[in-house]
């Protein structure tokens, strides 16, 4: 906006032409028209959430005083009113995003609240997982019917809660896999919306929600072969990184690129975890016989993830220049190699993982230095510093050695930053 104020001055100083000034003014006008919609959308959704919670509090306060029949009517009205609103919006004003999103969101919560209320009124004792599953199945069509990104987001978050409930429901051993089917339902719409409106705030939140939900739930596939979840997670983080580093996402600001951050941070944390020898102890007892592997959910998950990762990698090889590549793109492949090696020699695998983390840090320093980017340099230094901290927990290193390592990393931080600032100053001069 400050640029708009400066426009007359810029024109009079012959820095820009009056035509350019006119174009800039029109650009900001267009932007202004679009931005209140975004604000309205966010506040509309927040308002819908608050209204829903508020009604529940008011009802809860006087609830026990009401006779059972009134309680039941209330439980049904709780669904009927938002249903009517949704129906009205769908018929009369389907183009109004704020109305569509807020009414659909209220209905989403109303269905869950109504089932809970009926259970409470009639003392119906049920499983957490069956309640969640019923709620999700009854509300997931709203994502498509109401074309609602807000419902898609809360749905994704809710199925994340459903996942452990289903995993530990011993009555139905296969229910845990239902979660993965539920997860697939909103993805096509998310993809289409992303293609249509990549700058939509709710779609940007999806870029965070999806990797977050997957990170929180992949581990529930772990059964007998727990150790296989390490490569499983590593491949998944590799996929996130590749999506975040793809041509469409790379140009985005970091805050809009949840995949890249989840991919990178997840990879580093997992490598640091595997840099401890103690975390490889299950490797010795794991039964990796083919007959055992083929029925292991961990192995099936790895296979699917691996195929997806290879397809993404192949696609990136085709379109991306070699200069755009970095080690992060293939960390999952290197880790997989180290992991297989670890079955034969854990010690060697641990050394290689440590070297991999170190290489990641060094390469980031190099990239940061090339781009004169302090953020990248310091992230690289941070990776190395974390590696040093992790090694300081190893009891077989002497205190002198641990201390020296810390001092060296500390000096490294100072020197790297000092050199970078000096380089920048020289450029400016």
């Amino acid at each position, binding site marked *: 906006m400050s640029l708009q104020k400066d426009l007359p001055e810029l024109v009079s100083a012959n820095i820009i032409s009056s035509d350019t000034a006119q174009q800039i003014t029109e650009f900001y006008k267009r932007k202004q028209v679009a931005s209140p919609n975004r604000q309205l959308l966010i506040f509309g959704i927040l308002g819908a959430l608050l209204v829903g919670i508020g009604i529940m509090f008011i009802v809860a306060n006087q609830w026990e005083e009401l006779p059972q029949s009134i309680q039941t009517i209330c439980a049904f009205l709780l669904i009927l009113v938002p249903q009517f609103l949704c129906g009205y919006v769908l018929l009369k004003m389907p183009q109004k995003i704020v109305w569509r999103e807020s009414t659909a969101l209220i209905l989403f919560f109303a269905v869950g609240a109504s089932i809970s209320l*009926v259970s409470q009124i009639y003392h119906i004792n049920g499983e957490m997982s069956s309640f969640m599953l019923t709620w999700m199945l009854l509300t997931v069509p709203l994502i498509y019917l109401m074309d609602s990104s807000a419902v898609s987001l809360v749905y994704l978050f809710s199925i994340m809660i459903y996942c452990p409930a289903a995993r530990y429901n011993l009555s139905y051993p296969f229910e845990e896999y239902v979660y993965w089917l539920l997860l697939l339902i909103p993805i096509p719409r998310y993809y289409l919306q992303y293609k249509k409106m990549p700058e939509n705030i709710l779609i940007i939140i999806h870029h965070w929600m999806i990797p977050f939900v997957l990170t929180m739930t992949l581990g529930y596939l772990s059964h007998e072969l727990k150790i296989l979840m390490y490569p499983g997670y590593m491949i998944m983080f590799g996929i996130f990184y590749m999506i975040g580093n793809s041509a469409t996402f790379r140009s985005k600001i970091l805050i809009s690129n949840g995949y890249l951050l989840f991919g990178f941070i997840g990879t580093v944390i997992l490598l640091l975890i595997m840099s401890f020898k103690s975390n490889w102890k299950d490797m010795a007892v794991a039964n990796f016989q083919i007959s055992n592997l083929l029925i292991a959910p961990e192995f099936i998950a790895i296979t699917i993830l691996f195929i997806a990762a290879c397809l993404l990698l192949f696609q990136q090889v085709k379109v991306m220049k070699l200069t755009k590549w970095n080690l992060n793109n293939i960390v999952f492949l290197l880790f997989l190699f180290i992991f297989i090696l670890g079955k034969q020699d854990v010690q060697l695998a641990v050394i290689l993982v440590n070297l991999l983390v170190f290489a990641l840090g060094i390469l980031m320093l190099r990239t940061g230095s090339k781009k004169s980017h302090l953020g990248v340099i310091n992230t690289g230094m941070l990776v190395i510093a974390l590696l040093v901290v992790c090694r300081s927990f190893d009891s077989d290193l002497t205190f002198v050695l641990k201390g020296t390592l810390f001092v060296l990393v500390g000096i490294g931080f100072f020197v790297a930053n000092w050199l970078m600032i000096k380089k920048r100053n020289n450029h400016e001069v």
Partner: protein
Amino acid sequence: MKSRKLLFSAFIVVALAQLFVPWQMISEQPKFAETGVEYKFKIDSKAKSDNNWAGASIRGKYIWLKFEEDQIKIADKKEWENFQSAYVLLTHDSAGFAKIESATKTKPQNSIEWIRAKTWVHWKDTTTLHLEYPFNMYYFKDTSPKEIESILKNGLSDSLKVNYLSVKIRENQFFVNDLIIDGISFKEMMDKVKKSKPGK
């Protein structure tokens, strides 16, 4: 226009399904009330709770109850973990109180008299499986907790008095009838307290 109509029709179908589920839950209740089996769960007057009364304590608007029949001996300690769910098959003892027949990991096939309970095993005694029933929190309507406190203290600390919770059970569904303290209904006691209060 045609697609909008189609969309609206689909929405109507979904809306009906959303209403059908709670309706079905309610419609199954009479069947449950007819066929549910009544069980009397004796309150453990020896157990110490948070507030140091025997067998019960107030938590908000709930009374936490500790039952005598809430544990079973197990042979294989590795079989059970904490916070698992167990299917508790129930029966009646000679005095007519609830008794655990067995606790299994799979749903009982030949009986309707079972309830699911959360498990925990104490690290010192791994041969006993402790069970937490879903009805161990008894809800009381708007009454001063102080009066309830005195009723519970007087009623539950005397081990000679028979105190129990009456619950109807059928295939994991339950309906809490009443809390009986020394032969008197807790609901009736509360009504008396309410009536005796000025302005009530």
